[in-house]
Each structure stands twice: as C-alpha cells, then as structure tokens.
C-alpha cells in the first residue's frame, strides 16, 4: 500500500513546498508589490503636481504680486480701517466741496468664527452742499478706499431750486474689510490662478482714491504683513 503512494512523493512534496512558499513568501511579496505600486503612482502624481506648482510659483513676478497685494490691502484691508476711513471721508468732502458732519461710527466686533469671511461695520454721517457736489460725492464715495457701500441715503432738499441751494444728505454706509486667510492650504493644493475678472477688479480698485498716508507716532503692528504665514509653514 505504501509502495503504491511512494511514487507520488515528489509531486506531493512539491505541492507542499509551493503551498508553504505561497503563504510565507509569495503572498507578502505580492501584497507589498501592489501597495508599493499604488504608493508610487500616488507619489509620482504628487511630485508632478509639486513640480508644476513650483514652476508656476517661479514664473510669478514678485514685484507685480506685491503691488497687487498693496492695491487690494489699501482698498479692502485686513484690519478695521477706522482711521483711514475718517481721513478718506474728510479728504473726499474737501475735494467735492461738501460740508461733512454728524458722523456716527458703529465699529462692532470681529467675528472670530468667520475669520475668512467679509467683515463690515456701519457708519452714518451727513454731508451738506449743492446737488451737483453731493451727487459727485456719492459717486466717488464708493470709489474711495477703504471699500464702502451706501446702504441707505436720506436726502432733504431745503428749497425748491434744487441746483442752486444747499442740500443735506444723511448716508448710512457699510465699510468692508476681511481678515487674511489662516493658511495657504495643502502643499499639493493647486496654485491659484487669478481669473481675468479678478485681474480687472485689481485694475478697477487700483484707481480708488486713497487718503493721505497716516503715520503712527508710536511703533505699531508687524513690519512684514505675511510673517506669521512663513513662520507657520516652516514649523510644519
């Protein structure tokens, strides 16, 4: 009986060897190979993305982007622009020859939960002058930094002869600002390209009227506006 099965010894041993090798070697090798292959594919994509991103970053004109940031920051600041606002309104009323009075500022609080969203506060004031001057003042108000939007307007004409007499207008204006984004996104996030509409906006706001520069007497704030981001990135 044993003799009968002895002749199948070699194939049997080979089957056992193959089975054992499959469990001990082939299965782990195949598993590792598959995971490495997937990892390599993902990493190759990631490297391609990073290389493309660094090419785009290198192609950016540093001076140009800085001037764009300054233009945007001037009109749509990252901090509540109270002093600049007052200076702008005063300057505009002088330029447009209207009397500027009765200012009421409601600066409110920064909503920390929605840091990246638009923040605003209300200001109401009255101006007095001729219809043409007031019309021009209203027209230029929304083209003056910081960014403002007339929300409500209350005009009282003092006499029937509208063009020659003085008018008084009370304006409720919303003033806008926005805190800078907290982070620059993921490392492999695509480099954000500005659309033509956005470039047009920068051109449009570059023509906004700015108040004369206010120089603080005491040292204030950071010298480098973006310093916190650079430090954060290095820390990561």
């Amino acid at each position, binding site marked *: 009986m044993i003799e009968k099965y002895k*002749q*199948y010894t*070699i*194939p049997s041993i*080979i089957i056992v*060897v*193959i089975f054992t*090798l499959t469990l001990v*070697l*082939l299965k782990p*090798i195949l598993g590792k*190979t598959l995971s*490495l292959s997937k*990892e*390599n594919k993902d*990493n190759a994509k990631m*490297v391609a993305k*990073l*290389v493309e991103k*660094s090419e785009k*970053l*290198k192609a*950016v004109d*540093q001076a140009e*982007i800085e001037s*764009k940031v300054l233009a*945007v920051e001037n009109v*749509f600041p990252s901090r509540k622009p109270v002093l600049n606002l007052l200076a702008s309104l005063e300057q505009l009323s002088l330029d447009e020859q209207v009397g500027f009075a009765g200012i009421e500022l409601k600066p409110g609080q920064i909503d920390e939960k929605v840091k990246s969203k*638009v923040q605003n506060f209300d200001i109401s004031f009255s101006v007095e002058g001729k219809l043409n001057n007031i*019309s021009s003042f*209203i*027209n230029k108000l*929304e083209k003056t930094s910081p960014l403002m*939007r*007339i*929300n*409500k*307007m209350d*005009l*009282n*004409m003092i006499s*029937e*002869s*509208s*063009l020659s007499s003085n008018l008084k207008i009370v304006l409720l204006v919303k003033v*806008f600002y*926005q805190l800078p*984004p907290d982070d*620059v996104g993921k*490392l492999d996030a695509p*480099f*954000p390209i*500005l659309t033509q509409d956005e470039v047009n*906006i*920068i051109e449009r*706001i570059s023509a906004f009227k700015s108040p004369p520069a206010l120089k603080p007497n005491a040292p204030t704030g950071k010298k480098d506006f*973006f310093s916190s*981001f*650079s430090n954060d*990135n290095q820390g990561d």
Partner: protein
Amino acid sequence: MNSINFLKDKAVAIQRKSKVIFWLNLSSFIFLGLYILVLVVSFSYQLILKKQADDLERKFQAAKQEVESLSGIETKQVYLKNKLTSLQDILASQKENQQITEAVFNLIPEGIAINGFIIDEKGGVSFSASSKSFRAVKDFLDGMESTSQIGDLVFSQIKIKNINYDAEKGYSLGIYLSFKG
C-alpha cells in the same frame, strides 16, 4: 494450442504507469521551477518598485522644499484670490447703488422739492416731492410716467403712495420706486 501471455500486458501496464509517473514528476518540477521563477520575478519587481519609491521620495522632498521656499508668493496669491472673491460681490452691489442714485437724481426736475429721499437696503427708493406749482408737479409725474428705464436700470415699480394739497405748502406726493434685477 493457443496461449495467452498475461505477463506482457502487465509489463505494458507497468511501463505505461512509470511513464505517467515520470511525466507527473517532470511536470511537478517544471511547475516548481515556474513557480520559483514567478517568485524571483515578483521579488525583483518589488525591489525595482522600492528603488522607484526611494527616487520618488527624493524628488518629492526636493519639490516640497522648492515649493516651501516660494511659500511667500503662494501666500500672497492665496490672499489675493481670497479677497478678490469677496470683492467681486461687494463691487457688483456697489454699482447698483450708484446707478440708482444717479437715475433718481436725473428724474428730479426744477421746481420740485424733495424730502426724505431714502434708498433702502433692497435698493428701493422712497421720497416725497412737493411743489406749490401744479404745473411742476404735473411735469414731474408725466416725466416719471414716460420713463421706464434710465441707463441700465429698468423700473419695476413706480408707486405714488399719496397726493396731498395744502393751501400754504402746495402739493406733496409720496413716491416709491423699485428696479428690476
């Protein structure tokens, strides 16, 4: 006398069996050989992939370092993108306010006094117009009636809320205007 040789059949059967066993053993070895070849190829492929992974890791670190060294530019661009997205909406709503103001100023003729001119948050305009001259009031109303559009602004509603007459103060009208879009 015929004889039957059973030994010959057995010898053939044994020969056939040993041939089968030979082929079975041979094919087992061939199979083992092929299996070992697959094993070696798989292992080699794994080594190649490991080397590729190391190369990619080096390239990744280099690219990462380069992107990080340019993070100042990226920060500024993200800042611009973020702010410009918000600016788009604000500027669009601004344009409307200016147009409304200009449109209504253009509607007011000489001889009409305007009081309580208010643009509300929805862009609707309400005001009261007064004049001692009936002719001026009529011209003003005719002008409003015949105007359906000023510039890009199309009126959706011109509502005269009230008309009063006072012997001393003359005529006064409460007016509300709203615009399409």
